[in-house]
């Protein structure tokens, strides 16, 4: 026996172009009718063409780059590129790959809690007219707009020259953490502001305190937005070269400790191509870099869908 809903669904699935009685749908005009309509409003047609064109240009550029990278890089994706140790024969990208994960991961571990906590303070503990909040927000906005090379020089003077006496992963990690901190803070702040006050009121009215309301109601509701910010931050670290060349250096190996120097994938690509001898391998590295970003994006999408499904 079929369930009632299945029968109903089947009964009301209309054929694509006409209803059950064979009449055409009157609210879905044909293309010719639509064009006739546009004849009366030619400017609308121009605007329509422009917005479609803009969307196409954007998509086409992305596609062009990806396809170009794949065409150039795919033939050069040899197994030797993925050997664990780098030498001048195999030109392995694996040390750089691991360094990338270490630097990005640790920078996020440092910057995300601070950024989220700062955003919680700004949105949940202060009123919008507060002078101090205005100063913090302006500082964050300014920091977010500073070119990354400035962070690089700053990191070099503070971490490389003064603190750790040499290029090191930890110098790169701390520099990256400082660089993405305002980004994480701003995106989290926006996500928190998007949580309706009625959720907070509902929680307070049940006798929940401020902390419980923040952790059980506000942060979970804002989670998709927060995760989106974390992805952006990850992407910035993975794509960073200038600031890292001055801090974590260009050694093609995974160092024994965080105090050793090591390069990331983006820098690996830069050195390979700038030396001019191994441009093919640089293209292959680009594929891996793009894949890494795609995988992280996908994983984040998955996590954030999990959250959304729960609600």
């Amino acid at each position, binding site marked *: 026996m079929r369930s009632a809903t299945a029968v109903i669904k089947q009964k009301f699935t209309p054929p694509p172009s006409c209803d059950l009685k064979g009449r055409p749908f009157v609210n879905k005009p044909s293309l010719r009718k639509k064009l006739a309509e546009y004849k009366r409003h030619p400017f609308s047609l121009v605007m329509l063409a422009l917005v479609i064109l803009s969307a196409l240009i954007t998509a086409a550029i992305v596609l062009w780059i990806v396809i170009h990278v794949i065409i150039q890089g795919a033939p050069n994706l040899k197994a030797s590129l993925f050997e664990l140790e780098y030498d001048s024969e195999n030109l392995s990208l694996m040390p750089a790959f691991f360094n990338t994960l270490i630097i990005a991961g640790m920078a996020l571990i440092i910057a995300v809690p601070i950024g989220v906590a700062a955003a919680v303070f700004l949105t949940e503990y202060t*009123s919008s007219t507060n002078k101090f909040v205005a100063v913090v927000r302006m500082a964050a906005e300014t920091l977010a707009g500073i070119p990354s090379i400035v962070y690089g020089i700053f990191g070099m003077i503070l971490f490389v020259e003064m603190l750790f006496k040499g290029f090191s992963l930890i110098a790169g990690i701390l520099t990256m953490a400082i660089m993405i901190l305002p980004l994480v803070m701003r995106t989290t702040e926006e996500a928190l502001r998007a949580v*309706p006050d*009625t*959720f*907070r*009121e*509902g*929680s*307070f*009215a*049940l*006798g*929940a*305190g401020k902390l*419980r309301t923040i952790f*059980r*109601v506000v942060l*979970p*509701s804002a989670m998709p937005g927060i995760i989106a910010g974390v992805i952006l931050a990850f992407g910035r670290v993975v794509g960073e070269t200038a600031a890292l060349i001055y801090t974590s250096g260009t050694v093609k190996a995974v160092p024994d400790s965080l105090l050793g120097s090591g390069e990331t994938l983006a820098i690996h690509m830069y050195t390979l191509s700038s030396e001019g001898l191994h441009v093919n391998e640089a293209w292959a590295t680009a594929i891996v870099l793009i894949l890494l970003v795609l995988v992280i994006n996908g994983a984040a999408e998955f996590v954030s869908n999990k959250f959304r499904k*729960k*609600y």
Partner: protein
Amino acid sequence: MINNDLKQIGYTRGDKVFPKFRVKDLDLFYGNFQALKSVDMDMEANEITALIGPSGCGKSTFLKTLNRMNDIVPGCRVSGSVLLDGTDVYGGMDVNLLRKRVGMVFQKPNPFPSSVYDNIAYGPKTHGVRKKSELDDIVESSLRQAAIWDELKDRLKKSALGLSGGQQQRLCIARALAVRPDVLLMDEPTSALDPISTGKIEELAQELKKEYTIVIVTHNMQQAARISDKTGFFLLGELIEFGATDEVFDSPRDKRTEDYITGRFG
């Protein structure tokens, strides 16, 4: 004699007998604007007290002083006293425990963006209930009390945001009941709902007053007349008239009350 009668329903403290809520000489300011002017009101247990008046008259503001939800509003200052069972809620009482005892339902249904079950269980968990079986019992009994168990028992794990407006509002009532309050404050609980859902909520309020003290703010005078035992009429921050609902509607003492309920303004 009167004292003895009161003892049946009221709360004794020493020799004094208190109603559920006793509000005395309450003033409230938003910045420099005085929103409540010297309000005195007693609300008895197991009664429905309705607060009516035109928009901006202070009735919702007054309601929110009872569970101190006004504390959240920046620039809001309160003076006077609000006694719950004889204890001043503004006198060093833990605000979270106060709100556990005095639940609230808002104008717009505001379920959390989580499952039906988690919505109800949130309150009890907040106040220390951890055992799964106990939470299950609370969820079922609260939903039953809010007359929505039959509709929702098969979708406890589904999102509360997928419910209709009327169901959401009854879910919010169930959520408020789940922490076992003494008092239920309702801030225009049916203004966003259709007539059928409104009827259900009104029936529910009648049922709930057997166990709870209910204070309801409403724009709908028929609603106040239908369901309440006492009615208070607010105008420009003043409590103009307060008494048994029949008397307020049939033979109002103040001209302004009469004008309002006969629809001459507001």
